[in-house]
Every structure is written in C-alpha cells, then in structure tokens.
C-alpha cells in the first residue's frame, strides 16, 4: 500500500502531463504483478469494491471521532478521504499489505469483519496510506489522471502502440497479467472476443468559425446528430450487445432489439425511442435508460430503435481502416440485406458549400430530434478517440436565460475550497423556484467572484449547502429544456452552464417560471 499511496500522492501534486506519464511509466516498470495491474485498474476506474459502502467508513470514523468536530473539519477540508486520513486519532505499529493483497482481503471480508479490519488498517496506515485506502474504497480518485493518460504511460514504458492497447483494452480484465506479459515482450498480444468486446469509438471535435475557413466543403458530408445516446452494437449469430459511448454494456435495458441476421457485425449508431423511426424527445428516451428491469409497458410506450451511422466489422473483417465512403457502402449493403424493425439508416446530407449547409441546418432542424449536425470527412478512416481533422459536431445554438443564484455547495478535488456548484432559480409568484444546477462555464476569476459572494451572503446553512441572499443574477446557457416530474419546478435543463455573471441586473427583473415554460417548452 505504501508504494501505491506514494504513487497517487505524487500524481496528485504533479501538474505536468508529461511528468505524470513519466511517474506512471516508472511505476509500471518497477512494480511486480499483480500490484501494477490492480493499480492500473484503479487508475482507469475499472475496479469496484461494492461490498464496502462509504457509509461504513463514516460509521467507523464516528465511533472514534466526535461528530461535530468531524463535521467542522470536513467542511474546512472539503474532501472526505482527506478529512478522515488527517483526523483519524489512533496510531498503531504495523505495516499494510500490498495493494493487491488489500484488495483481495477487502473483497472477501465477511460482513461482521468489516469494521474491525478497517479500523486496524486505518490505525496502522500512515496519513497518505489512509487517504489512499479511503479513495480506493470510495472509488473515483480525482487525482487528475485519466484512463487515457494511464494507457499512454503503459505505451511509453513498453514501447507499444497506444492504439493497440486501446483496441484490446475492453476485452481484458484486472489484474491484466496477459496485458503486462505482452507489454514486457513475455507473451503474445492478448486475444479478445470480438463478440463481447466494446471497441473504443471515434468522436468528433466541436467545429469553430475558423474551421469553416480552412476546411474544404467538398471533402465532407453531413449527417444529423440525433438527440439520443451514441451506441455500439455487436451482432453475433444470435446475440446482441449494446454498449454506451464509454463502453458500458446497456444491452439488458433494451431487450426488444434482436438480431434477425446471421452475420457477425459491429455497428455504430444512435439509440432513440419512437415509432416508425421518428424519434421522440430525449426526455422520453430517459424513461428507458438506467433500468435494470424493463416492463412491457415501457417497451410499448417508448419503443427503442437505432439510427445507424457506421460499420466497424463485418464477418470478422475489420473495416476501420477503410474510408468513410467505403464503410458507408458496406453499411448500406448490409442494411438492405438485413432490413428489420430496429435499425434505420441515418441519412447522408450532401451540400456544396458551408453556407448551404448552414441554411439547411437553420431550416430543417427539429428541436426534439436533433442535437445539431455531424460533419465527416469522406476519405477518413474510423480512428478511436477524438482525432483532429476528421469528424466535427456542429451543435445547435444554446438557449439562454437569466436566473437568480439560490444555493451553493463546495466543489471537489482541486476546487474543494471554492463554492463552485450552484443552484439557480426563476420566480414563481414572489418565490424563487430552482430550475437547475451548474458547476462550470465560468473562468477562474468569475469563480472567485461567485465564491466570495456566497461566503459573504450566506443566510442559512444546511450541512454543506449554503443558501444565499437572492440578489445575484447569472446568465445560464443550456441545450434544451424537458418537462420533468422529478423536479419541483417541473422543468429540467440539459447541459446547463454559467455563461456570464450579471452583476448589473437586479434579481427582480428575472422572468417568471411560467414565462420560461411558455417560451421554451
């Protein structure tokens, strides 16, 4: 545990990306299996210790630390793992097991052993080890290391290609013995099961004004950016796997999507709900997401289907290195042969100039169905990640509303000493009604202004939440509004962010909720 805790401490305090890669690459070089494999799993968020809820840790802490003193400390420090690691009052001799041994012990703990074992671990750990241990249990390190960065370090220490690591990543499991064997030239590249493995997807960059000047319109086609969720579909002889953009298997939420074809194929598309391939709005799709059990009623009310964008594999042939044009040809050929109830082709939009496309977008966009346009290079191959120069997204213009700041809560990680999560609202008669939360969009200086306002204008505290004077107006940008019965105001904003501080505007001039609904719903 010592080595692991020192590693993540170093990573936290290092801000240079290259230096982080060096630190990690050294660690992989000088650490044995399976410790380095488990560390990799933790850094890439692939390891979960479901059997120990974080509430259990709090319970143990409250048996040993005064509740009020803990609350005051947590409010000051802002990070749970750090607060506990610093406040823990007992120090005993001993040393912790290695990271892999600890994971093994924690996974196999019986219910009645949890408190005793954890209390012992917390007491023999040093402060940094305690911090690492709690991070391990609570999940989500927040040390500024992305999964991509960890894999980049793997590539660096082994001299293998990052793309090759990405290609097999979703087919291998912690502690990745076979991966490290290959990376250290002691074994073959791990074989992965194509029918079960998510392939990292190709993503688009936002298009900028400048891009329209430099990009040649004849080299691109466009498609609607459908307002659903991007998925990868793997069809086997009788199997269907649906993965979200991040590689989560969401097949069981959509059991109605079946495979009638007898070919093996990997497709890229947008999951939507609706009838006759006409999408309902995103809110309707949300009724189907994150459900473990799907009822017939749900399937009847919100039937799912997929708009197809692309094809990655056909009968064991990897098509990803082919151009978009030839992949499209293969996709259309497959589609004609296998037309069924669950798949529809996403149409290709042709245009001769950016202006023409701009007009098309303006006139043809349907708010409930489209998020904007996708622009794709005709001769581009399918490259995992977000390569520059191939795919662009052209989102519809955001909507704006001025709202009053109501509540604030402190952020996490780097922002843990700033009030950086804000709830804002509109008037409902002479009361304010919250319509959403935002925690980005502002720059560092604006954050300082907001933080200061919150600290100086708190009128009530509810645990970590501060209620503030209803005098500060902020301009909120958002992509869409949906009706919601989960929120008191009856509306839910999509992708809200703070666009501007409106210190010049009195709160009394903010609009009524009813006005907002009739404007945007």
């Amino acid at each position, binding site marked *: 545990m010592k080595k692991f805790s020192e590693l993540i401490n170093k990573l*936290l305090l290092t801000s240079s990306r290259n230096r982080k890669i060096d630190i990690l690459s050294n660690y992989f070089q000088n650490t044995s299996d399976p410790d380095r494999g488990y560390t990799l799993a933790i850094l890439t968020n692939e390891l979960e210790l479901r059997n120990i809820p974080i509430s259990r840790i709090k319970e143990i802490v409250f048996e040993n630390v005064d509740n009020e003193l803990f609350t005051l400390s947590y409010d*000051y*420090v802002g990070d749970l793992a*750090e607060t506990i690691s610093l406040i823990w009052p007992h120090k005993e001799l001993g040393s912790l097991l290695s990271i892999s041994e600890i994971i093994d012990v924690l996974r196999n703990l019986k219910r009645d052993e949890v408190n005793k074992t954890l209390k012992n671990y917390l007491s023999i750990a040093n402060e940094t080890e305690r911090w690492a241990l709690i991070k391990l249990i609570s999940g989500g390190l927040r040390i500024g290391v992305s999964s991509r960065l960890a894999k980049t370090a793997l590539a660096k220490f082994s001299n293998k290609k990052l793309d090759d690591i990405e290609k097999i990543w979703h087919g291998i499991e912690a502690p990745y013995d076979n991966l490290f064997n290959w990376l250290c030239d002691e074994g073959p590249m791990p074989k992965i099961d194509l029918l079960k493995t998510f392939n990292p997807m190709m993503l688009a960059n936002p298009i900028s004004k400048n891009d329209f000047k430099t990009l040649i319109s004849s080299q691109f086609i466009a498609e609607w950016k459908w307002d659903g969720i991007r998925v990868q579909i793997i069809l086997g002889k009788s199997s269907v796997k649906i993965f979200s953009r991040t590689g989560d298997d969401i097949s069981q939420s959509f059991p109605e999507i079946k495979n009638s074809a007898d070919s093996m194929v990997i497709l890229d598309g947008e999951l939507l709900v609706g009838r006759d391939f006409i999408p309902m709005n995103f809110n309707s799709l949300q009724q189907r997401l994150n459900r473990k059990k799907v009822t017939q009623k749900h399937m009847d009310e919100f039937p799912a289907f997929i708009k197809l964008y692309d094809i990655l594999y056909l009968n064991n042939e990897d098509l990803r290195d082919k151009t978009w044009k030839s992949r499209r040809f293969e996709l259309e050929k497959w589609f004609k042969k296998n037309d069924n109830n669950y798949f529809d082709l996403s149409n290709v939009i042709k245009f001769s100039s950016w202006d023409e496309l701009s007009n098309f977008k303006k006139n043809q966009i349907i708010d409930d169905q489209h998020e904007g346009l996708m622009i794709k290079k005709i001769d581009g191959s399918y490259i995992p990640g977000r390569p520059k120069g191939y795919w662009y997204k052209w989102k519809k213009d955001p909507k704006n509303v001025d709202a009053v700041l109501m509540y604030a809560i402190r952020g996490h990680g*780097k922002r843990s000493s700033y009030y950086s999560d804000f709830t804002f609202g509109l008037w409902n008669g002479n009361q304010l009604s919250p319509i959403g939360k935002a925690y980005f969009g502002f720059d560092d200086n604006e954050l300082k202004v907001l933080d200061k306002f919150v600290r100086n204008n708190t009128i009530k505290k509810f645990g970590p939440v501060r209620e503030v004077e209803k005098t500060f107006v902020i301009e909120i940008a958002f992509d869409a509004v949906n009706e919601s019965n989960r929120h008191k105001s009856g509306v839910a904003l999509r992708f809200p962010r703070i666009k501007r501080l409106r210190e010049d505007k009195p709160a009394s001039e903010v609009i009524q909720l009813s006005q907002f609904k009739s404007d945007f719903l």
Partner: protein
Amino acid sequence: MKWIDKNLHIKPINTHIDPYKPVENAIITHGHADHAKPGHKNVLATSETIEIMKIRYGENCAENFQILPTNQSLKINDVLIKFFPAGHILGSVQVLTEYKGEKINFTGDYKTTSDQTCKDFEPVKCHTLVTEATFGLPVFQHPNENEEIKKLLKSINLFSERPHLVGVYALGKAQRVINLLRQQGYDKEIFIHGSLEKLCEYYQNNNIDLGRITKVNLKKKKDYNGEIILAPPSAIKNIWSRKFEDPIICQASGWMSIKQRAKQSLVELPLIISDHADWNELTKYIKFTDAENVYVTHGREEAIVHWCKMNNINGLALSLSGRDDEEQL
C-alpha cells in the same frame, strides 16, 4: 474578564495587546505583520520584537519603545505584566497579566515544540486563557519537522538537476527552515530571496546558526540547479520564479498537510512545518493552564469552543479582525 474587553484592551492601564490600528499604548507579542503594526505611541515588547519592528517599519515606527525581557515582571498601576516565551519566532511571547488576583494569559501565536531559532515555549497557569487557534481543527496534527526536512533533502538527491524553490514566510519560517537543514547536516550554500536578507542577518546577529546564505542573483541562471532557494510564497507565484529552470516548487507551512491546498497552490513538494500549535498542542495547553474561561482570538474558533464545551470549560470566540489567518504562514 471585566477589566479587559474583546479587543484585547486592558482597561485599567489603557493598553492594547497586538492592536490592529495605532493606539496610545501597545503590548506586542511578536513581530509578524498581523500582530505588530507601526504607528503606536508607546510599545512594550521584548528587545527582539522591537528590533524586528524597526527592521521592518523603520526606527521611528513608534514614539517610545520599552523593553521587557521574558520572565521579568513589570507593574503598571495595579496591573502586573510578565512575558513568557511563546516558542513561535524569535522574540515571541505570551503576555500574562494580573489584576486584583485574577490572571489572564494571552498566548499570542505559539507552538510548544522545540525550535533552535527562538526560546522554548514555557507553559503558565492562569484563570483565563486568551488563545490563538490557527490550526484549531483535529485534522491538524503536525508531523515531526525533521522528517519533513528529510523529504526536501531526499528530493534534492533525486532531482539534483532541478532547483528547489521553497516558499517560506520571511520572518521566522525562513530562518527555522535554514536552521533545520543545518541540523540535518546540509552544509551547502543556501540561497535566499532579497526580502529575507535583513531578517536572516538579524537572526545571525542573535547567534542563530544559519550557515552560508547568499542572496539570489538572477543574472547567473543555471547555477541554481540542485540548490535550495528560499523565497516568500508571493515571489514564487510571480514572475521572479520564472527565471529558474524547471524548479520544484516546495512550501513550508502547516497548511501543507491538506493535499488539496498544496495542489491549489501548485506546490509539488509540501513540507508540513508550522510555527503554530497544532490541535493536540492547543487542547493540551488549554487543559494544562487550568483556565476556567477560554477566549479564542483567531483561527478555527468553532472547533476549539466546541471542544471546551465537551470538557466543561467556558469557551468563546472573539473573531478578532485583521489577523492574516488565510495567509499561508
């Protein structure tokens, strides 16, 4: 505490302790800027504190100076005043006042751990304790300072091609860090930012061993690789520090125990070295004094007041203004 009010004003002799604004009579506990202000008429302090004030604000920063050495008493009217070493920085004291049989002790800023750059803290009993609480939360449990200094030395061995820029407060912290390095056998030249020069000189004149120290000369750039350079945190944050090639930013402060704080200030190597008492020292001392009343001047008052309640002691927060509590001392 009827004869002393919330602004630390000793009414029978019209004297303030560490007043924020210029007053007629001031007792100054130590030379840090949030305690020692210029412009008072009469100042009573240790000779070291008076010298430090003169270095920082000029010879005429008060009309009259009166020296009171530690452990000697001074009676003004019916009030007895006695200074006890506070162990915070050179010249720092606690102020024990006695009037009509009631003893009130003002800790000023203090720490109880040993420090070769100033007199060791001396505990004293009292009826009422007026204490600081800069680190008054149980999350603050300072580690051994020598272990922290070893971290710096280890890093220098490991990254001998990079300059180590250590953020320190100019008065007290800078000299202590140098002294701790010397105690660990580090005998190389140590470089300092110009703003530390006079105060280091003053410490050396007081027979505190700082070894070879040299002001940074930025015209010679590459010479600082593998060296230790001390500078106030503000200098490290501004352009001054850009002249060093790929420095490791370190900071010596009690706040550095909070990793997220270190990260926010872009500190790569935090050194938890504090010249204030931590939670355990604060609570242990409150118990030792046998005080029935505890007033907290500045810092994390709420937690100390709550702890007093748990221990059947009357606690009250004074929330004095003007203390640089958030500054990373």
